[in-house]
């Protein structure tokens, strides 16, 4: 599991890759927290295109980032969601809270 971030004019993009399970989620959460505090972005884009597996641990990661962006009065969107992760998000009803593009 890895995350790499790029920031351009207060728009932060986080590219996640690998298996997003409980084993890997903590590190992702910490890295996302750190980058958001550092950049205080207006927009956070989470790119999931390279995520090969995700379970409910990924839901908590996104919800936490979403809450933090709301506190900063910014917005967050999630892009390139693989089919397996999409099924998990759908089962959890996450599309009602988070913007998937």
């Amino acid at each position: 599991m890895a995350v790499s971030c790029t920031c351009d004019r207060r728009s932060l993009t986080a590219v996640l890759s690998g298996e997003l399970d409980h084993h890997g989620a903590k590190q992702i959460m910490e890295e996302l927290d750190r980058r958001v505090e550092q950049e205080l972005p207006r927009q956070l884009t989470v790119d999931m295109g390279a995520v090969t597996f995700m379970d409910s641990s990924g839901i908590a990661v996104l919800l936490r980032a979403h809450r933090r962006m709301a506190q900063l009065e910014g917005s967050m969107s999630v892009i390139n969601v693989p089919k397996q992760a999409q099924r998990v998000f759908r089962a959890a009803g996450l599309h009602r809270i988070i913007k998937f593009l």
Partner: protein
Amino acid sequence: MKAKASNFVSVDFPSRSANEGFARTVAACFAAQLDPTLDEVNDIKTAVSEAVTNAIVHAYPDTIGKVSMKLRIYEDNGMEIVIRDWGVGIEDVEQAREPMFSTGGEERAGMGFTIMESFMDKLRVRSAPGKGTTVTMRRRISRRAGVK
């Protein structure tokens, strides 16, 4: 009517998070005998990941304990997955199964059981405080004509 089991496998492992990936890979490899679609394999991997993660995170909060996974294939193309721990157990199973119920704090969403339920045909949870928890799931794999 209960179909006959045609094959089974059983693995025990300690409740270390590195075994989450291992357990779902074992389940996916075993399920391959039923010639599942990619979506079906992914559903099985996801459900196994949820149950095993619960055993690792909740059953043994401050210790390392034993987790057991038993997989069975039936002649009706069904697969049964039994994940068991001997940890703290669940006080109120009905409440635990509700969407968004969690004792895990910020790092958990409380969606594990909801996901298992929606990805599997059947989910049974038996638990006793102080004794442990057994999660039994069942999923029928579609038979595909001709394609091999």
